[in-house]
């Protein structure tokens, strides 16, 4: 049985290479991306909070297009005490995925949403005059930034006008954002407020009255497709701070090659011990269980390759737990069979009863595991998600293997002599 797991690693160039496992950062390494965050518009006291928000948005974003278990980490350069002189960076590590460019594009496509208010006229003219002389070119003469950014966005929804069918986007802020928005609209009644997306204005409505419900509507000149994509991007995470990619390099595994090999061998020794134990304790049914488990392991590993699931230490833990539960299903059935034999039933009846009676406990224990997996997958991020996914796939497959494979073989062999089955009375 160990062969099936070990083969892909131990025999490079074998048939297994055609569908390689997708191994995670800790097992195989991947790519190390460094983004620089532009914190110039944020007050020094808020930088920590904003960077933590940025971290979570990017992590959600990377997870959004598949479970790849990224590592996302805030980095601060220098050790100077003045936070303004520190450069804020974000490290994103992705496992060795094939479409790296796509991943970078996806992280880059995370929209940066910003609300700006009109600059006072005097200041505006001053900047415009300076810009004629090629000075202060980086400043926007017409609008000034406000505190309100994508950081406070709760939800974006797409609407269509009932008569013109023109698409518009409804933004819903969280409580804090709603208060800031109310403040901005209150102070700017009769003036324009500009909504900037990735540094360009997309809509510049005039404020008619204070808006206190935390809702804003963008009625830009969108094509429906564009609007739809924008809403999706906003919902999967609007950036609290703009970022730019500054470096990209490949990295090795954190757990390292030696670790992986030792871990694999330890796993193989453990599983072999279980197999030997099952055969000695249950004889023929044990042998059949071991056979069914081999099929089960191959089936699950095949699923991991085909889906594909990124395997990390956490993912493998989930898989091993599911193997344990698969073994347990077999043990439940066989123990039940032994009981029925002890009650004086014939072998054939005992087998059928064993499967039938063990089913409710297999079903209920596995369904509760699946419920746990669904919640963890849904709520968790990164590692927890990977664990929940492999465990969930494993549990589903184990219900199938114990009930169908073991049962079919045991009933098909139909051996009559009791000595093959029961060792201890």
């Amino acid at each position: 049985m160990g062969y099936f797991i070990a083969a892909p690693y131990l025999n490079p160039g074998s048939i297994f290479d055609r569908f390689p496992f997708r191994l995670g950062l800790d097992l195989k390494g991947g790519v190390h991306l460094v983004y620089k965050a532009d914190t110039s518009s944020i007050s020094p006291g808020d930088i920590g909070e904003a960077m933590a928000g940025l971290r979570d948005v990017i992590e959600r974003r990377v997870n959004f297009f598949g479970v790849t278990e990224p590592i996302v980490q805030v980095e601060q350069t220098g050790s100077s005490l003045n936070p303004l002189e520190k450069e804020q960076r974000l490290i994103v590590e992705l496992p060795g995925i094939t479409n790296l460019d796509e991943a970078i594009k996806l992280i880059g496509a995370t929209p940066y949403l910003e609300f700006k208010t009109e600059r006072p006229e005097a200041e505006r003219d001053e900047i415009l005059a300076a810009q004629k002389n090629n000075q202060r070119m980086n400043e926007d003469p017409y609008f000034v930034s406000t505190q309100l950014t994508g950081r406070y966005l709760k939800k974006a929804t797409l609407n269509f006008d009932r008569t013109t069918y023109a698409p518009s986007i409804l933004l819903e802020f969280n409580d804090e954002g709603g208060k800031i928005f109310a403040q901005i609209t209150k102070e700017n009644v009769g003036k324009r407020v500009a909504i900037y997306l990735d540094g360009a204005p997309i809509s510049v409505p005039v404020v008619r009255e204070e808006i206190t419900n935390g809702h804003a509507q963008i009625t830009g000149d969108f094509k429906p497709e564009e609007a739809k994509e924008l809403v999706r991007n906003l919902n999967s995470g609007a950036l609290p701070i703009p970022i730019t990619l500054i470096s990209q390099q490949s990295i090795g595994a954190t757990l390292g090659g030696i670790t992986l090999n030792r871990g694999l061998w330890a796993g193989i020794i453990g599983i072999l011990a279980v197999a030997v134990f099952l055969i000695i304790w249950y004889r023929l049914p044990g042998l059949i269980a071991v056979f069914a488990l081999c099929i089960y392991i191959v089936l699950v590993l095949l699923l991991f390759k085909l889906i594909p699931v990124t395997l990390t230490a956490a993912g493998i833990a989930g898989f091993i737990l599911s193997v344990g539960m698969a073994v347990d299903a077999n043990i439940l059935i066989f123990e039940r069979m032994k009981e029925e034999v002890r009650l004086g039933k014939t072998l054939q009846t005992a087998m059928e009863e064993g499967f039938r009676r063990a089913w409710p406990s297999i079903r209920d224990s596995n369904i509760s595991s699946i419920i746990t997996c669904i919640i963890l997958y849904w709520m968790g991020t990164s590692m927890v998600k990977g664990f929940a996914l492999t465990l969930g796939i494993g549990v589903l497959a184990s219900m199938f293997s114990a009930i169908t494979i073991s049962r079919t073989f045991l009933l098909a062999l139909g051996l009559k002599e009791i000595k093959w089955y029961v060792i201890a009375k």
Partner: protein
Amino acid sequence: MVRNRKIAYIFSGTLVLVSFCALIIWGLKPGIDFTGGSLLEANYPNNRPDIAKIQASVNALGFGNVSIQLAGDSGIIVRSKDLSQEEHQKLLAALNIDGKIAEEKNFNSIGPVIGKELRQKSWIAIILVAVMIILYIAFAFRKVSLPVSSSQGGTLASWKYGVVAVLALIHDVTIPTGTFALLGHFKGIEVDTLFITALLTTLGFSVHDTIVVFDRIRENLKKQIGLSFDDTVEISIRQTMARSIITSMTVIFVLVALLIFGPASTKYFSLALLIGVVFGTYSSICLASPLLVSWKKWSEKRKLRK
């Protein structure tokens, strides 16, 4: 099991209490996955040493968990706890191996890998898991609430089975966590993302194991086996005991193999799981089912008083 349940209650209660105290007084020692630390990037212009050698050299410094990754063709990335200027220099010196000199490119401070969002959501997830398990068990065991026979002396509502399963789960997860709080205080063992995985695995195993025993109680109640509820529970525990122990043995085989033959980095992962599995098995035999009996007796007494 049922008759001597008070011993189990005292034993488990003490362990859970000690675990909670250890957690409150010392807490877990968070690893760099939780706290962040320092990140050093270096380059070996002429020939990079073997990663195992770098690892051995850095581990000898005793800076706790240090993760070392190869970067590009000639670089390495070292993540460690927050280093003082002196420790930083020591680390750099330790990277020079067999005359191969490491040139430092960057030395920066880094934030945690486990973000605020994950921490907050994990708590909600755990509470949600507990609620859903209670609901599912209440549904799956709904028939045990029906009056069965007079010999059983009334029944126990099915949602109570769910609550007991969750109590056993809390017990099974608290003990390894408390153990690591002690290990953290006395031995400086840190907890990392692998530890969280071990706890999640324990959580899955615990419920699974408890339900198997409850299932047997459900079946025996239906068949009216046993003279009283105590008796039925006792019989059910005995009937499923072989299975519980054999299943745990198989898991323990794998974990002990991982503990002895496995790599150093998963040693504490295996240990946390081993504790979780042992107590998970123990609680489903000695704690969860007897608790059902105690609950039933307690509510009967309350009814009598009224």
